[in-house]
């Protein structure tokens, strides 16, 4: 299928942006049937930024949970953060929930930064891993938000902020996952190995 090439100013500019290097137009890395590249840095870096912000919040809350910080910042809900962060749910697992969250955010950031601008087809496995890391982290955050008022009749400001961050990451991460899955399914439909396409190996 021929792709209509509607070059924007930005694209034609970056075509000439790297003199001396082999000129690969951005449009060559746009998935078939798309009009932008979901693996472009402009698409991914904001998500990585959100992941690092979430990591910062979760790490701070974890430090309070292990006792490294004596008090926790809570501007709105009185004793709410303390109630939530020392609750039984937060200590269900051997590691505190905020510490797990911090690890999750770090995994998101690493999976978001790995690979180049064409990683939707060169490394589908990391894109899918990225989606798998981002999705459940957000789902667990929302579950924990619901548990705050239901079990403890309290709200924790920074926990809510962390949940918003993790949910905000899901939407922009999924377009890249979609492009990678389309690439793998497309390989299978052409009679090639979906397995090799998933790991980014030559057909």
């Amino acid at each position, binding site marked *: 299928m021929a792709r209509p090439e509607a070059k924007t100013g930005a694209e034609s500019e970056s075509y000439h942006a790297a003199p001396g290097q082999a000129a690969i137009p951005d449009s060559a890395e746009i998935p078939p049937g798309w009009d932008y590249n979901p693996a472009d840095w402009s698409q991914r870096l904001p998500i990585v930024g959100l992941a690092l912000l979430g990591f910062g919040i979760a790490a701070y809350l974890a430090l309070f949970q292990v006792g490294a910080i004596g008090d926790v910042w809570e501007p709105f809900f009185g004793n709410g953060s303390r109630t939530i962060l020392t609750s039984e749910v937060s200590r269900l697992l051997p590691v505190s929930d905020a510490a797990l969250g911090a690890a999750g955010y770090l995994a998101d950031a690493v999976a978001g930064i790995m690979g180049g601008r064409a990683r939707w087809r060169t490394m589908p496995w990391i894109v899918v891993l990225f989606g798998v890391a981002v999705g459940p982290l957000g789902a667990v955050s929302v579950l924990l938000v619901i548990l705050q008022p239901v079990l403890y009749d309290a709200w924790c400001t920074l926990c809510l902020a962390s949940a918003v961050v993790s949910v905000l990451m899901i939407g922009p991460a999924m377009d890249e996952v979609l492009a990678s899955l389309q690439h793998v*399914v497309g390989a299978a439909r052409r009679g090639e190995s979906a397995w090799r396409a998933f790991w980014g190996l030559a057909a």
Partner: protein
Amino acid sequence: VIAQLAAALVGVWITAAPGVLGYAGAARLLAVTLGPIAASLALIAAWETTRGLRWGNVAAGAVLILAPWLLPGAHWAAQISNVLAGALLLALSLLGGEVRGRHGGGWSALFREPERG
């Protein structure tokens, strides 16, 4: 996008309503459960490739509109808030918002063989 962001704000209102309006019991549980879910679905549906999640909020809105019949004993303020917020959520989610970009046929392209020409 704007419709989904507005729907997210409706979700925040639903979550906050029991505290603001001062009601408790089953109506409060419904609100603090559905509210965060609705706000999250709307925030994810704000992006074009995941716009389909708005249908979850169509369902959530319908549940809230039916809440006075599901929870007949609840506080009147809860009933009014539920019906109004539910109707708003339903309308905003049905509205959806335009999808500008092309995404290779979207998620359905994974399950549907493309027509050969």
